[in-house]
């Protein structure tokens, strides 16, 4: 019987890891659809960002209450996963609480800590569910979350609660069995939380308790493995990608816009034609801006997969606050959805041919792009260093330079700058009129 369970466990574990690894490879391939960009300068500052922003969740603390709750859930999730190691080894080798005897009296302390974290995770998730579904916080009721994204968030919170309940129930049953001196349930000493819960299960027979303990053990680990495989399809992927995303975060001042060397060169040759002779002929026609995800950088796509759709960006966006269509969160969700769409074609056909769709218009409308004031509030607010503005500006460049698509007022502004050296139609001769007026 034991051997069958062990075998079954190893098969399930291997399958879960294999499926997860396959999906991870797909996501990596999708992210690398983006154009290349070098983001390896300043490793010191980059590691500092990983420590402060990803591990330390520094930006979450802009709202301390939520930050503390989130930190409980996050720390609990990571630390309790240390317990998974024991569970996996027990499952594969057929032991029970393998670490109990080597760790001795330290073991119940460790489990006690895990249990306290489990309670914190449980409470945190419960409060988060209330904030989303009962209090209905502004940023959780936006239409950009309608459908799957809103359910996704609830599934994750409910799953975490279920996993924690299973973990605590398993330990409680174990504690009762230990107290009865059941064979196989070695005495570990008192667990801090489940030790208090034993009266709840005292009425059960040994065999029911064993069934309960084993049942919870299996459901817990199966739940964990299912969760692992759910992650890559979910917005919850941020628990992994927040780390690389923080490392590759833009280190330059937020006000700096990405330069376009191809245009720089072209204008240079126009202004100084004498340089053209020594210039090697350009290869192909350069593309200006971005129309689809392949035109964005891989960092933009990594960000799209790192986004957990929390909506802090959208809640701070002046355009969104005043009822415009733009939602920076939707920009990120759309980018991921389009990358996934192309990924599905790649899975089926191996190569991607034009499918008549693009990120621009099929996902993100011109109206959204034109509502942006480039104020950087979305960039500032993002706890995991996502920059929706970079995507918006690349799409704007495509609109204006590839399609000559701009509002009439912008075209006038362009014309004025070109002809009058100012965005308004004033005579350049009047530029110092104020100075003349001051002579008096």
């Amino acid at each position, binding site marked *: 019987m034991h051997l069958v369970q062990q075998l079954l466990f190893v098969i399930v574990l291997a399958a879960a890891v294999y499926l997860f690894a396959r999906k991870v490879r797909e996501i990596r391939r999708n992210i690398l659809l983006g154009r290349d960009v070098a983001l390896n300068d300043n490793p010191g500052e980059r590691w500092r960002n990983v420590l402060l922003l990803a591990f330390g969740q520094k930006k979450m603390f802009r709202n301390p209450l939520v930050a503390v709750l989130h930190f409980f859930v996050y720390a609990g999730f990571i630390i309790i996963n240390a317990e998974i190691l024991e569970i996996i080894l027990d499952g594969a080798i057929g032991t029970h609480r393998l670490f109990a005897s080597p760790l001795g009296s330290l073991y119940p302390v460790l489990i006690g800590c895990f249990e306290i974290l489990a309670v914190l995770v449980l409470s945190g998730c419960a409060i988060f569910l209330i904030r989303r579904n009962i209090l209905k916080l502004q940023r959780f009721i936006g239409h950009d979350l309608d459908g799957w994204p809103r359910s996704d968030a609830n599934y994750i919170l409910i799953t975490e609660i279920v996993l924690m309940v299973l973990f605590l129930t398993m330990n409680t049953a174990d504690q009762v069995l230990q107290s009865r001196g059941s064979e196989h349930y070695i005495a570990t000493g008192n667990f801090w939380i489940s030790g208090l819960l034993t009266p709840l299960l005292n009425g059960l027979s040994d065999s029911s308790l064993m069934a309960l303990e084993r049942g919870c053990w299996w459901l817990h680990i199966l739940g964990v493995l299912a969760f692992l495989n759910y992650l890559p399809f979910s917005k919850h992927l941020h628990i992994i990608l927040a780390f690389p995303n923080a490392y590759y975060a833009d280190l*330059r*001042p*937020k*006000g*700096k*816009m990405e*330069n*376009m060397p191809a*245009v*720089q060169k*072209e*204008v*240079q040759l*126009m202004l100084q034609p004498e340089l053209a002779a020594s210039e090697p002929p350009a290869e192909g026609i350069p593309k*200006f*801006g971005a129309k689809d995800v392949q035109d964005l950088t891989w960092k933009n796509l990594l960000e799209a997969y790192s986004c957990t759709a929390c909506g802090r960006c959208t809640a701070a966006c*002046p*355009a969104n*606050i*005043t*009822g*415009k*269509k733009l939602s920076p969160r939707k920009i990120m969700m759309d980018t991921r959805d389009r990358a996934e769409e192309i990924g599905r074609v790649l899975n089926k056909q191996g190569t991607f041919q034009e499918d008549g769709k693009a990120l621009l218009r099929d996902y993100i409308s011109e*109206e959204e792009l*034109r*509502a*942006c*004031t*480039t*104020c*950087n*509030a979305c*960039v500032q607010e993002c706890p995991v260093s996502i920059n929706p503005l970079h995507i918006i*500006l690349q799409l*704007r460049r495509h609109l*204006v*330079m590839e399609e000559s698509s*701009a*509002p009439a*007022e*912008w075209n*006038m*502004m*362009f014309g004025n*700058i*070109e002809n009058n*050296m*100012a*965005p*308004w139609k*004033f005579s*350049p001769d*009047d*530029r*110092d009129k*104020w*100075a003349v*007026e*001051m*002579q008096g």
Partner: protein
Amino acid sequence: MTIKTMAEYAASGETPEVLFWVGCAGSFDQRAQKITKAFATILDKAGIRFAILGKEESCTGDPARRAGNEFIFQMMAQNNIQVLNGYGVKKIVTACPHCFNIFKNEYPELGGNYEVLHHTSFLQQLIDEGKIKMTEGGTFKGRRITYHDSCYLGRANNIYEAPRKVLEALDAELVEMKRCRSKGLCCGAGGAQMFKEEEKGTTRVNFERGREAVDTGATVIASNCPFCMTMLTDGVKEQGKEDSVQVLDIAEIVAKQLGD
């Protein structure tokens, strides 16, 4: 008072300490011209040898670049850099955060390397060095002032304190809006919005910000950007408060408070 151009300085074989980059709004917009004049007056009183480019100045290319037109931006930027480098300009001060941002962050990789200061930082230095002195009491004594962070000075370049330090030198009561510093709400003009009609929404960004500013009970809204100035002035009007609430640039506030 006579304001000399770079060309005039060059002709007399002299070099000014700093170039005052006026910007398009500061040059042409009637309201913003007052900011320009106020700042020039302060520079003059502080004994700073400054120059302007005069007719040789042109748009930095900021609105074109942010709207998506990189060609026009590159044309303006490369021409400007040629002019600035031609005069050997080392230090620039400007009263426009958009010009400031583009000089500081975007011109260097095109060959334009200058020490760039926004006028609020420059004013703070002048106060710290004792080059300008504010009168005791005066126009702003006891008045409630709220400061609006422009996006291109604040979030874009992390300058939050210099303008506040300047205001603290007044004998006034400084109150913050709920959304201030890195959480400051945009006025609605950036990203070339200034030059087009707003997209459809439930309200205008400047109305939202105007309401927030008026709600502080301040009688003066201090700004640091000519575009914020336009937007906030309209926002205050929408609240029907144009008679009781003034929108003033920090340079104008300092100029009104200058001692002898």
